[in-house]
């Protein structure tokens, strides 16, 4: 039997803690090595160090699967805001995973449906075809229809809280953030992660979004099968398309026109959800998208769907609009509403946060100034990275006053970072529809 099949998920709290501790030790070890190297050779690049650390953290996170892998994914989204070495390594998290044992799969079916996989399906392939972040995907057939069955790793929901608590110090240290500053945001992240472990919830989300997106003729959302699904396994029609991860890996083989088309579909899909539905797929990594044989964009995994409160939505995008229009009084008004500026700030702090937020808006919303935008241009990403580094170097941004903004923005940012990254990888030129600005309602 293959020893590859789960080299075991370390799941007791002590074991998991042990793993984090071990990695922490190695990370510090790498820093020591780096500095001792520096004494003898001052040309040693910080990149060298980041690469070693990324490898260690990556090893740890993939070994832990579940929440930890999710953290790896969220981190890998921040292309440009992280050293390149981290991003490259974390990207592997989307597909590099190990399989669960056959008896565990059978047991999951029995436990959650009272039936064996062979009773539920005409045929079931016990070998998984790919990994999902908190589970793995199998092929199955019923009544001549090929299906995709996603099965969750056991104990994921249970370990979310303890994983977050243990991953926190390590991750926060690495990125120079203080724990107390992000507690209000962690609640949002944890609640979404817990939601993602409930496949019945994902099924309901998927069906709802599919219904609302029925008019989008460029999108394919697979049909879900509630009678063949449960809290821990989820069955949907098999998408025959090419995973976007493969498409991106072989992007040179596709014409620029094809790449632009995929990019446009993705952008339009995100914009439609955010600006029309105010409810969006918030796990925008290439593993969740497929380029379909009929040219449509296949969308999977509605485990993490974020609903935007209307107040937040209007204020947030009105703030962006004011920023792009350079309308300072309005911008200030919305910055206060969005908690980027605070009444308690002294003049200097106020100016600092105003400048930084304005610059961020101008960078992040820059594509919206144009009718068409070329995302392959490295300038925007380089500037974003430079801006990120500059901000993180400022001592003011390392204080407890620094972490600002509404918690509702976390998944919106995550989604747009995901979108920009994919568009950048696609080297795509896309058309931007700014008409949503006219529909915003001022409070």
């Amino acid at each position, binding site marked *: *039997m293959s*020893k590859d099949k*789960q*080299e*075991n*998920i370390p*799941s007791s709290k002590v074991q998991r803690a042990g793993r984090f501790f071990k990695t922490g030790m190695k990370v510090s070890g790498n820093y020591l090595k780096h500095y001792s190297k520096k004494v003898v050779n001052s040309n040693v690049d910080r990149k060298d160090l980041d690469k070693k650390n990324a490898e260690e953290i990556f090893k740890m996170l993939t070994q832990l699967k579940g929440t930890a892998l999710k953290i790896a994914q969220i981190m890998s989204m921040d292309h440009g805001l992280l050293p390149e070495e981290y991003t490259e390594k974390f990207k592997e998290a989307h597909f590099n995973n190990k399989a*669960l*044992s*056959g*008896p*565990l799969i*059978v*047991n*999951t079916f*029995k*436990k*959650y449906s009272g039936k*064996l996989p*062979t009773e539920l399906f005409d045929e079931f392939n*016990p070998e998984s075809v790919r990994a999902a972040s908190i589970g793995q995907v199998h092929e199955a057939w019923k009544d001549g229809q090929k299906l995709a069955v996603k099965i969750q790793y*056991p*104990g994921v*929901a*249970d370990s979310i809280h303890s994983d977050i608590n243990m991953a926190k110090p390590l991750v926060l240290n690495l990125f120079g953030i203080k724990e107390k500053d992000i507690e209000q945001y962690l609640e949002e992240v944890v609640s979404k992660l817990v939601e993602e472990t409930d496949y019945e919830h994902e099924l309901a989300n998927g069906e709802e979004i599919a219904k609302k997106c029925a008019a989008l003729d460029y999108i394919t959302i697979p049909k879900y099968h509630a009678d063949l699904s449960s809290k821990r396994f989820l069955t949907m029609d098999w998408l025959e398309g090419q995973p976007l991860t493969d498409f991106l890996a072989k992007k040179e083989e596709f014409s620029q026109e094809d790449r632009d088309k995929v990019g446009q579909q993705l952008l339009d899909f995100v914009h439609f959800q955010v600006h029309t539905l105010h409810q969006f797929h918030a796990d925008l990594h290439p593993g969740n998208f497929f380029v379909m044989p009929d040219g449509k964009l296949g969308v999977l995994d509605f485990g993490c769907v974020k609903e935007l409160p209307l107040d937040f939505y209007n204020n947030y995008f009105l703030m962006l609009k004011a920023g792009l229009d350079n309308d300072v009084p309005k911008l200030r008004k919305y910055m206060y509403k969005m908690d980027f500026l605070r009444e308690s700030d002294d003049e200097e702090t106020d100016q600092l946060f105003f400048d930084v937020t304005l610059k961020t808006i101008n960078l992040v919303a820059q594509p919206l100034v144009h009718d068409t935008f070329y995302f392959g241009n490295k300038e925007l990403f380089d500037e974003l990275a430079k801006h990120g580094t500059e901000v993180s170097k400022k001592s003011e941004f390392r204080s407890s006053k620094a972490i600002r903004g509404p918690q509702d923005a976390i998944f919106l940012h995550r989604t747009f970072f995901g979108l920009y990254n994919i568009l950048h990888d696609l080297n795509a030129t896309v058309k931007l529809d700014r008409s949503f600005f006219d529909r915003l309602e001022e409070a």
Partner: protein
Amino acid sequence: MYDKERLISAYIEFYDKNQRFPDDADEFANYLGSDAFEFLKTFNPLVSLKAFIWEEYFDKALEQCQQDPSFEQYACREVYLSILYNIVNVLNERREMNKSMISFTKSLPSFPKELKRMKVNATGFYKEMISAGQNSGEIATRPLVDYQYNKWCWYGTIFVIYFWIKDTSEQNEQTDVAIEKVAHLIFDILNPNAVDSSIEFFTFLFKQGFK
């Protein structure tokens, strides 16, 4: 006349009515309405009755394993995993009752007396399983040691039962993780590994006259 099956169902019936098992044979005999002497001749002490129930659990788990068509094709590691999962499934059918039907002492590995009959069945089955695994090459043949393999599998089984009793996670998901861990630990040791290669290497050197 009370036979084994009738006594077992009466014993469970007692639990259902009282949410506990009888404290002693007399209490159970009174409940049965027969005289204690006749009863005690067959089952003395009550722990034997529990042992019969646990013995049946192993057999039932094995039956459930065989309902899965892939069971026949499983390698030993998966057979063992499958048995452990099904033992837990059987235990979950009467969760509270089964938890109160076993008494672990604080220090493992002193094993509950209630499992003595189950042990005979389980170690017997594991012995056959290991022998098949050794024939296929999945499990290493190691003179002086390998006769103990079936006991290691039994200790793994006890660990899982012990873990299940303590497990408070939803749908016993942590027990599933525990099963994966214990089965892989045992089979990583039982599979031919670096130890076997080292022994073979040094035996070779010894035979060649290297010193």
